[in-house]
């Protein structure tokens, strides 16, 4: 069953004819994802790598019955591409684009409210349900099907966690990269809620970062609502104050959103913490044995 995406997902790529869009669409298709179309304004009616291209998302959805979109549109036009997907009532929008202005995302956030769409990202690696469907830029081969859900704000750190699991022959139900930007479509709690309801998920890894309250809000939600075990790591314990570490989200400005403060609250909420990113696989193995 997993969450968000599966065998029945019908994907269109927005910005399909670009270099990145082409490469990752083909990688996703090779993994087994059902890619039904793509959108590049001005190239409608053509066929790209065997995939029909449309001028507008609206038309692509109408013609292909797509139920998910992957966005590879450059930052200046990416927010507009998301809004076009919302308007076309696509249930799932996954935006990979990095570097969208915060002001644009504030408008997207407002457009999502009351809509029929869920947005994952932006600035994220995407979503994968191992063995069934991959939408994004993650290396498919490090994953294996199984029962651990993974949620993360980071890309490569997620691969690290997944790799540790697969090496121990612990498979994953679904891995979701929610993205490193300060304003995103889906937060930890949204994913935790889905994993809690998903019968295929037995435990969850949550990988957070310094900055903001997303992890501590999630911790309190877990304490109140979650029966499945959660293992968590917060990146940035060694980050100096006031420095932005690559992700716009990861800026540490006050005491409360430091890694130490977050680890403490997570622990108080009954979450198993991994102080070292190298311990994630081992900690999950431990909670699964209990």
């Amino acid at each position, binding site marked *: 069953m997993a969450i968000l995406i599966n065998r029945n997902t019908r994907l269109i790529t927005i910005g399909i004819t670009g270099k990145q869009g082409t490469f990752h669409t083909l990688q996703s298709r090779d993994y087994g994802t059902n890619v039904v179309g793509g959108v590049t304004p001005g190239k409608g009616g053509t066929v790209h790598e065997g995939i029909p291209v449309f001028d507008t998302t609206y038309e692509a959805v109408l013609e292909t019955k797509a139920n998910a979109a992957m966005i590879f549109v450059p*930052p*200046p036009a990416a927010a507009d591409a998301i809004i076009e997907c919302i308007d076309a009532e696509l249930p799932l929008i996954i935006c990979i684009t990095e*570097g*969208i*202005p*915060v*002001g*644009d*995302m*504030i*408008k997207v*956030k*407002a457009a999502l409210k009351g809509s029929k769409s869920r947005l994952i990202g932006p600035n994220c690696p995407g979503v994968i349900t191992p063995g069934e469907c991959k939408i994004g*830029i*993650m*290396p498919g*081969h490090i994953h294996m099907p199984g029962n651990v859900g993974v949620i*993360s*704000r*980071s*890309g*490569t*750190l*997620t*691969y*690290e966690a997944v*790799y540790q699991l697969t090496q121990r022959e612990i498979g994953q139900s679904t891995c979701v990269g929610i993205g*490193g930007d*300060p*304003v995103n479509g889906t937060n930890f709690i949204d994913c935790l809620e889905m994993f809690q309801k998903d019968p295929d998920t037995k435990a969850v890894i949550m*990988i957070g*970062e*310094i900055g*903001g*309250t*997303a992890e501590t*809000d999630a911790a309190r939600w877990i304490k109140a609502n979650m029966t499945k075990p959660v293992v968590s*790591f917060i*990146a*940035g*314990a*060694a*980050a*100096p104050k*006031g*420095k*932005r*570490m*690559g*992700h*716009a*989200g*990861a800026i540490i400005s*006050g*005491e409360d959103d430091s*890694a130490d403060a977050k680890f403490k609250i997570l622990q108080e909420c009954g979450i198993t913490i991994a*102080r*070292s*990113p*190298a311990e994630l696989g081992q900690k999950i193995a431990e909670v699964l044995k209990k």
Partner: protein
Amino acid sequence: MNVHEYQAKDLMREFNIAVLKGGVANTPAEAVEVAKKLGGNIWVVKAQIHAGGRGKGGGVKLARSLDEVEKLSKEILGMQLVTHQTGPEGKKVLKVLVEQGCDIDHEYYCGIVLDRSVGKICMMVSTEGGMEIEKVAHETPEKIVKCHIDAATGFTAAHGRKLGYALGLKGETLKKAMAFFDGLYKLYVSKDCSIAEINPLVTTKQGEVLALDGKLNFDDNALFRHPEIEAMRDITEESAQELEAGKYGLSYISLDGNIGCLVNGAGLAMATLDILKLHGGSPANFLDVGGGATKETVQKAFTIILQDPNVKAILVNIFGGIMKCDIIANGVVDAAKELGVKVPLVVRLEGTNVSVGKKILAESGLKITPANDLADAAKKAVEAAKGGK
């Protein structure tokens, strides 16, 4: 991106936000000229650096004569100004802002930031002006009144009344404050700010509402549509290495340890610093080579890391997803050979084409310590920085 107070105030004038008359000066003579033009008999000389707390550090002084303007400008220009935001080494002052004085009646605080938890812009005011706002937020949070602004409505008169009322303002002063808040919101949104902070916002004995200080930060991701803001960049305020790294799509931050780090992805790069510390090591830098690194960017990354004389060992930690391990391995080998890397090199590769990558490293003839996993890499790098076992 950060700008100076005088630049922030120029922008505020464009949005009809009340500020004092003033002008920027690079020399004491220029400062006197500015003061003469402004007229009056009292002026404030303010050091222009990208850091707060300038007053406490001795970078803001009151002058009661033109001679005093000259004397104080001489003292401030060229000084190494230390504040709680500059670090112990301080920052050299290259410019001063000379402003008119004013009759302050009351000091307030006004700030705009993004509230990430709801994805909305939040305007905050406080009666505790002139103080460190972090302290107020921590000790007396009830003294900060917040107003979330929906993207659909924008800033309305209702928001303005709420904030003005919270400061206890009435009549004409309230109206002026409402116009002030409205202008600041418009500035924040149209210029893609990430922080707008007025501390203090003052009311004067003459009933004016104006910004005595002004701090603006801008969203780097939005600079492509604001060449006028980009033109305000003061490169003397930025780290030369960080700027150089940025040109090659590398994200580099200098730290005070001795283990140079080269990692792909911001999250993994942060986690690498964390695990080094957990194993008793101390990272010399944060460096994210990004998703699309080439041989050239890896080489550039090595050059930047090696510019730091404290580096005693280098840890390369790459989890190749999009980035293929053989490309990284070739980049590492070439860079090490061409740059003549003398410090121990610990390399951990994982992901796409990892076996080819490891083979390239092993056959390079270089003294590279391979690591099996993240923990192993951290241990080996910490040992290497200590001078081996």
